[in-house]
């Protein structure tokens, strides 16, 4: 698993940035008056778009292959999650961005742990 500070910092920054961008974009662009299914699909697609942009931008400095897993999962989950929360009560963009950052951090940590486990599994 990755242990070099430069790459860990880059990977975390990418996931957190994607989470913030997905959260704020969904709050700004998806209407909670849409049907739940349409809103969730739109949220997921917005999250994936934010992730794709983040992967390309951060990938230049840190390599895309290792960024795309946590970033894409972060984008999709944040997009859908913010829609689900927004349907219950209106969310401010700042709150949605903060929740997105949290999702990014958790997903990166889980992916790092999965990588550590899988690297032990060698045939």
């Amino acid at each position, binding site marked *: 698993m990755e242990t070099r500070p430069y790459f860990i910092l880059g990977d975390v920054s990418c996931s957190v940035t994607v989470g913030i961008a997905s959260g704020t974009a969904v709050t700004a662009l998806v209407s909670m008056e849409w049907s739940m299914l349409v809103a969730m699909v739109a949220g997921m697609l917005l999250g994936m778009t934010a992730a*794709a942009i983040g992967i390309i931008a951060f*990938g230049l400095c840190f390599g*895309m292959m290792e960024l795309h897993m946590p970033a894409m999962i972060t984008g999709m989950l944040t997009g859908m999650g913010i829609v689900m929360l927004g349907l219950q009560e209106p969310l401010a963009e700042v709150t949605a961005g903060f929740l997105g950052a949290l999702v990014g951090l958790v997903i990166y940590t889980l992916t790092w742990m999965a*990588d550590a486990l899988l690297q032990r*599994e*060698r045939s």
Partner: protein
Amino acid sequence: MDLRTKKKWDRASSFLNLFQSFGAERRWAPVKQEFFRAMQGKVLFVGVGTGLDIPSFPPNRDIIGIDISDRMLARATSKARMYRGRLELRQLDVHEIDFAPGTFDQVFTSCTFCSVPNPVRGLEVLRRVLKPGGELRMFEHTGSGYFPFNCLLHLMNPVARLIGPEISRDTVGNVVRAGFQIVRVRHAYLDVLKTIHAVSPA
């Protein structure tokens, strides 16, 4: 020659270095240097691209590097000239390699078989040009056996395929289907980036 694939990689040659040369190469250079250290005898390197891997090759080896794209090879030329050993570049489609059977002791690939249109056929051709007992060593990104990674890779694959490689292939399975015997598979990142060591049956 597969002109469609050639065109795709000719186009990619103009931006590949921008995306790969700094971040990805810097991250994987230590793994690649260790991976290429095993080069010995007459070596075929498939998918030399713009030559990003050449600085990681150990010196004084006898290598033929091939690629389907002449534009990629043009960019690789300066790196090949700086290599301290014998390194010859040729434009060849892996499906149509015309070396005599049993020419090579080893075949190396680095992020190549995510892009070969017919991977099993390509690997069968490589088995033919390897000596009996010759080694196939691959550094490849592949599909995953685990949820949610496999789900995500299949979801992203149609877009990835348009601009470059496929990201959900069962490359280890393809190696076995092409008639190689797996010696060792090591994960480099999750189970999606790995080194594969296989041998051509004697």
